[in-house]
């Protein structure tokens, strides 16, 4: 599924704020305050403060030029030491590139920016998926979210295809991946479970597949 984002079709400009900091303007929408991006970011993080006391893993929707991310990182570090992680979802390639060129903000290695235009590609990013499975706190950057609302809604309600050929991408073991590649084309996970249950002679990886089938269905 390729979802065209609002930002990908709109022109990106960069203006300077009163505090002399670059502010991206996408399709006429200012992604940060044109007066003082830092102060605005500070206020945004303070308004969400209560969420970070117990949550040290945060998923941010929208990179902008990263002022809010810098403030969030400083807050999380103060609250949790080095035990925090931030992932940033950004659908605009152009915005991401411009941020890299200008580097108006910088973060530690505990912050990861993930940029794709296609929703499915985000869910193919193993590091991001691993992070999401820990159920992080989701923090939409208001201006970015507003600009790409339909993209972020699609992100949250995405359905990954359940066919085995799509699954294979995630299987690191060559042996198990080879076993899965023998599934008939277009076979779904439910179908492979049923087919293996009906086999008259099981092989090593069939047992693993059946164990998985039991594990995900047991009460």
């Amino acid at each position: 599924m390729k979802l065209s984002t609002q930002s990908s079709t709109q022109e990106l400009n960069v203006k300077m704020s009163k505090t002399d900091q670059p502010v991206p303007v996408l399709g006429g929408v200012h992604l940060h305050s044109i007066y003082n991006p830092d102060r605005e970011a500070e206020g945004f993080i303070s308004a969400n403060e209560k969420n970070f006391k117990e949550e040290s893993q945060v998923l941010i929707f929208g990179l902008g030029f990263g002022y809010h991310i810098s403030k969030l990182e400083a807050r999380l570090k103060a609250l949790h030491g080095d035990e925090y992680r931030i992932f940033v979802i950004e659908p605009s390639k152009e915005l991401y590139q411009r941020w890299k060129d200008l580097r108006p903000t910088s973060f530690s290695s505990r912050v990861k920016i993930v940029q794709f235009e296609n929703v499915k590609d985000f869910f193919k990013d193993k590091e991001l998926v691993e992070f999401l499975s820990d159920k992080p706190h989701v923090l939409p950057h208001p201006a970015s979210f507003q600009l790409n609302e339909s993209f972020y809604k699609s992100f949250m309600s995405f359905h990954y295809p359940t066919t085995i050929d799509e699954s294979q991408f995630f299987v690191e073991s060559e042996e198990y991946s080879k076993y899965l590649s023998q599934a008939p084309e277009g076979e779904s996970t439910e179908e492979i479970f049923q087919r293996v249950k009906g086999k008259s002679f099981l092989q090593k990886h069939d047992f693993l597949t059946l164990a998985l089938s039991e594990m995900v269905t047991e009460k």
Partner: protein
Amino acid sequence: MTKILIINLKKFGDIFQTSHLIASIKKKTPSAEVSLLCYGESYSAAKILKGLTTVHTIDRKKIISFFKNSIYSDGLAFNQIEKSLRTVLDTKFDKVINYSNDKTSSYLTSYLCSNPETKFEGIRFTEKQSISYSNEYSVIFNDVITSTPYTPYSFNDCQHLISDLSPAKADGVKSNKLHDQTALNNLNRLRKMKNEDISTTSIIGIQLLSGDESKDIPKEVLVRTIELIQASKEMIPILLIGPFPKERALANELNATFDSKLVSVEADFIALPSVLKSIDLVVTADTSIKHLCDIQDTACVEVSLGGAPLFKQGSNNTQSAIISAPAHMRNFKGSLGIGTKSDEYDINPNLVFHTARLLLGLSTEGFNFEDEKSIHCVYRPTKVLDGVVLMPISGPFNDAFEIRRLLCRSIVQKTLKGVLDENYITLIANRFEKAKVTKVINEEKEALSGVTKELLSTLRGLIQTQENNSKAPLFIAALEKLLSKCFDNSLSAIPAMMFRAKIESLNSNSMQENFKEVEGLLYELKDNLQHSIFTYSTIERVSQEAYTNKRKATSLDKQMDERV
């Protein structure tokens, strides 16, 4: 060096129970390297077990999350399970013990035993999808214990028999010496507040909640029990709670009833062993704490309610006692009947208090507790040759049911080992009146002749079918009748269940081979019925001897009295 992997995919209590098996393996083979494979959510219990080289985990929560949440590819679940087992597979274990014996663990056993040099104990699936049993005791574990109301062995005893191990004393769990000392100091301070001489004060830990509401001790019973303990001169109650909001809330609620005078101790599995070491007795429902008490040698009064699997997984520490509705009235599925928290059958707090006092040696009145309204009995774990049995001590239990329940073990013993533990038979004979034993044995002999009749019809049907295929329906009908004996309430259901398990796992390639195997199994069943007959004759004889000895003793007493 032998490398052994135990697969236990159950929860905390079962993980603690594995400690007995680990200790027995280590006693038999001190150099063995024992590892455990469990779910990630049980790791907090597994990591405190002694004797383990490695604890491998499967992050089931993550696997389920990957699978159930549609934003993720199912491939992540496939990858996660394979990845979790990669190091296990690479370790090249010599033996895999399927401890939890459920479907998932059985598939995993098959997967991990794909190397022909890796042996297994328990059950696994064969390539043809039938069940493979490592020995006859694994048949008992999976097909008898789970089906009969009489439970010949607890899971722990049966697991030892599957692995051909003599039960060794569990080695306790890991605890921090500093925590041990702090807990002891704090609790001694508490003892001193009651009596200057701390040796005269016992601390009673009250575990508030189990993971299942139907098993919980009702709040009113807890309150009354705490009142009784508080009022006694020699006992102090403390509330034991885990780090969970629900337990904290109940502790606060109870404490409010007692003007905040109760001490409550919140501890996770790292700190709890230190607390248990320093208290004298624990009152608990069917919880993981009771298993921890068993391996730490802390006495407990287990209040077994709801679907708590009393005879499969009850306390096995001989210093403990279990309060339960009589065995014949228990509904182990926990949905209906006695054992649920109906007001009519609520536990009498005086019984809990009285039992605790007896276990602590604070009373010599004996376990006979007079309460006409109470239907609850006291059972006590008693050591026998091949493990621990729960002997009925007091209360309105049903003699016939209890005789059958206890005798069931002897039948399996004679069938599988060929010999009977006469001391155990004597224990039963001494516990029950001869007339009651005789009545049960007569009924059982009659039931056994019913099974024998069906067995002979089936054999006849099989022989006729082998000669003439058109007779097959006769054979099938006779076999069905024979298998229906598995649902009898008599002990003859036990050999029938063993027969059924083997029939169901037949794996032959041709009809002829199948007939041969069935014929073999029918003759094996015939032999097994003979073992039952032998067991009945033995208990009759021993019961008669016990009766004669008692009469002799009574008459001697009389003579002595007359002389005096």
